């Protein structure tokens, strides 16, 4: 695995709150746009295509 799936965020509750707060006041369409922008920004930050493919597969698992 090249994808980090062990705990890696020092303040997980802070991150989670920031994520949910970002969606405050947005309708479903805008929320979907925000999520998409976020995925693209983070994917570019990761950069490693193998890690991204692993993340896509893990996210898809069970759906």
């Amino acid at each position, binding site marked *: 695995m090249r994808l980090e799936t062990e705990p890696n965020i020092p303040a997980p509750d802070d991150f989670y709150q920031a994520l949910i707060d970002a969606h405050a006041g947005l309708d479903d369409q805008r929320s979907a*746009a925000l999520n998409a922008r976020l*995925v693209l920004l983070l994917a570019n930050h990761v950069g490693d295509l193998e890690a991204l493919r692993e993340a896509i597969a893990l996210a898809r698992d069970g759906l």
Partner: protein
Amino acid sequence: MNSRTPARFPYIPPPELGGELRIPVAIVGAGPVGVACAIDLALHGVQAVVLDDNDTVSTGSRAICYAKRTLEILDRLGCAETITGRGVCWNVGKVFHRDRLAYQFDLLPEGGHKHPAFVNLQQYLLEEAMLARLQAVGGEVRWKNRVAGAAPDADGVTLSVETPDGTYRVRADWVIACDGARSPMRDYLGLDWQGQIFRDRFLIADVRMVGDYPTERWFWFDPPFHPNQSVLLHRQADDVWRIDFQLGWNADPDEERKPERVIPRIRAMLGDDRPFELEWVSVYTFQCRRLDRFVHGRVIFAGDAAHQVSPFGARGANSGIQDADNLCWKLARVVRGEAAPALLATYDVERVAAADENILNSTRSTDFITPKSTMSRVFRDAVLDLSVKHAFARRLVNSGRLSMPATYRESALDTPDTDAFVSVLVPGSPASDAPVRIDGHLGWLLDRVGGASAVLYFMAADRSADLERLLQHAGEIRVVVVVPAGGGALGGGGVAVVEDIDGLVARRYGAAPGTIYLLRPDQHIAARWRRWDAQAFERAVARSTGRQEVTAHAA
């Protein structure tokens, strides 16, 4: 609708009516691919005839963009000057999203190339220039000669040909089928032709107007004047502009091509009341597909008859002309008995891989331009929104990945590297052009390389003995000696010497004194070394030309 009268060519009753013409190569279809094959075979001294069911160049909107590599091939064939002179050069593309410019790109940041990134020219003008060249090299097109049937066997193909005056047969050792996307030759051979149909329709309008739009490619996603769809604007020669409106799958093609529907769309895009004239209007759908194999015994498919892509990326005509470039030197060697027919299997492998690359790129562009699901559309718009501020997102915008030549990786004709090279070029790449001085005149490397097997030898002052040995082993192979700027006197002795005036030849080839490149007749790299090795050279030459053992052909 067509306000231009295309050139017509005379039909001449064939002398073989009721009988048979025997010829080494018959080419079916006088489009750009068929005519490229005919010119190339003529330059290789192989007798061929082109059969076409019509008597004009193509009408209406077809190909318009010719990429640098295609221009280099057309230059080798001897008709690039007319085409570049007649066409419109462009490098800048702009992408708009809704009501604003998302970003712009420049296709050719690198100088030192004879040809621009792209030349735009209506296909009928390209064909006229190519047909003039074919005539100049003594090639023959038989207009209004329709191939009505094909009977291939182990040694050749018998074509039944219909003319206004009756029928005759053409017995050819080889047939190149360049008869387009609807290829009747495919049907005669009963070949399967399946692929992905894109559920979308596009309106093409070629508009003649005196516009102050710059010579750039403009692509709109979801513009205010055509909501939820895409629009492409491209300039051609003679103040003709190509406008491409995405219409969606449910559009009625017969309604949409009516001027009363088309004119308001163009008017809304122009945003003013400048005068314009419709030169051509059509509504099209497209598919991405290819034949499983391009070589079927003595019948060889090329261009749209072999593979089809979406128009985004200009990969149709460009790949077809590159098919011709790959095929003709091989076929010439086989016809002359210098190589076994097995050499043609490398056309199949190399150009099938190129077609797959083109289909992959064009399918991805189409998926971006026409998102297939709600979430696909959400991501597409997110990419476009982010592209305004963020360079990384611009790399994800896909309004067409413009045609790049294929590299024939791991081809049976190419010799893998044994020496280390720092260069973007690898065995299988098309050779890079660069400015050089030849006999005191400024010129270009690829002009000197031409259309035969060639060797580039980067002159080493202390190793003139290597050059002597190379010349002894070169035989028919053209040797081009590359000397550093100011080193013109290093050559001599009847050898072509080019002076690397800007150092770009050495840089692009990652070359040092003593480096040797072996090029195929299609100017793709076959092998390269850091120093002379007679045995390695002999092996690579035999491998790159599919050279047949003399004994194998003795019978």
